């Protein structure tokens, strides 16, 4: 508060509430990440296997189904076998990288970037 210029108005209550909420959010996210890291130790092998096999099976099932529907021989099955394998590796990568349990669409850098943006916002508001 002391670094504020004299011409700047006092921080309003809603401003303060926003800041508290932001700090709480970050703390919760931090705690959550640590919690997830702890949990990931035990069942990581089973999880990786399920991600890989499940995704591959979905690829094969879609390829087989499309082949039956379109009558295109074994070709779509072959294509989707490889696509399923690639998607499986992608899902495993997402599951075991620092995204934690999320096989979602965020990339490892996304979390850092987001918190960086948040800090930027905070600086903009307070500075």
């Amino acid at each position: 508060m002391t670094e504020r210029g004299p011409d700047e108005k006092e921080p309003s209550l809603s401003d303060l509430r926003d800041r508290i909420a932001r700090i709480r959010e970050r703390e919760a996210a931090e705690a959550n990440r640590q919690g997830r890291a702890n949990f990931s130790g035990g069942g990581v092998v089973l999880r990786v296997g399920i991600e890989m096999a499940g995704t591959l099976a979905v690829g094969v099932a879609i390829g087989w189904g499309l082949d039956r529907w379109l009558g295109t021989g074994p070709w779509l099955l072959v294509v989707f076998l490889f696509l399923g394998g690639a998607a499986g590796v992608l899902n495993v990568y997402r599951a075991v990288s620092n995204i934690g349990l999320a096989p979602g669409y965020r990339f490892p850098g996304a979390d850092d970037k987001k918190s960086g943006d948040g800090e930027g916002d905070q600086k903009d508001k307070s500075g």
Partner: protein
Amino acid sequence: MASPLQQFEIKTIAAANVGGVNVSFTNSALFMVIAITAITAFLLLGVRKRALVPGRLQSMAELMYEFVAGLVRDNVGSAGRAYFPFIFTLFMFILFCNTIGLIPYTFTVTSHIIVTFALAIVVFIGVTIVGIAKHGMKWFSYFFPPGAPIYMAPLLVPIEILSYLARPVTLALRLFANMMAGHTMLKVFAGFVIALGVAGVAPLAILIALYMLELIVAVLQAFVFAILTCLYLHDALHLH
């Protein structure tokens, strides 16, 4: 010695047939009803007194509520508040099904893949509808990773779509595989206890340790299912 897989057998309690579809009331359905009754009783009795300083039961009910509320807040953000009832219901149902299944002579509903798949597909379809309703056509940009060169699209888009379609399968498989494997293992070791006579003390000790592990797995898998639902919901609400 009874087969370790016998515990997963579906037994018809009251046979019923509606329009050629078998809608019999089975032991699986019975234990779903028991789980829901237990949840309702637990929550209703817990909040009945509405004490400012909560008693034991009220503390437990509030703990559950706050745990799931925190989960939704941390993983979906404030936009997820509307979906809290769904995630709370899902979490409590899986938690109670898993833990009730650990009581001897009961049936574990979540050890059948069709049950877990039904739960997962509800989550999957629901999340997809939420995503499309919120973002419209922009939602389909989901399947192209941001920052990738456009000529990679023919390869990346099918992989991302497959990766997305695999979600309900892996979500269902994870819960099912954990429950089924754990319960089979418990039964195998329980069989050893009887077969080995006095020396059965050794497998009994392992059985106790395994039971503790299964208790952790039962709670953890309910948590994992709920947190993954939260993360999928987060993706649908916020896209990239």
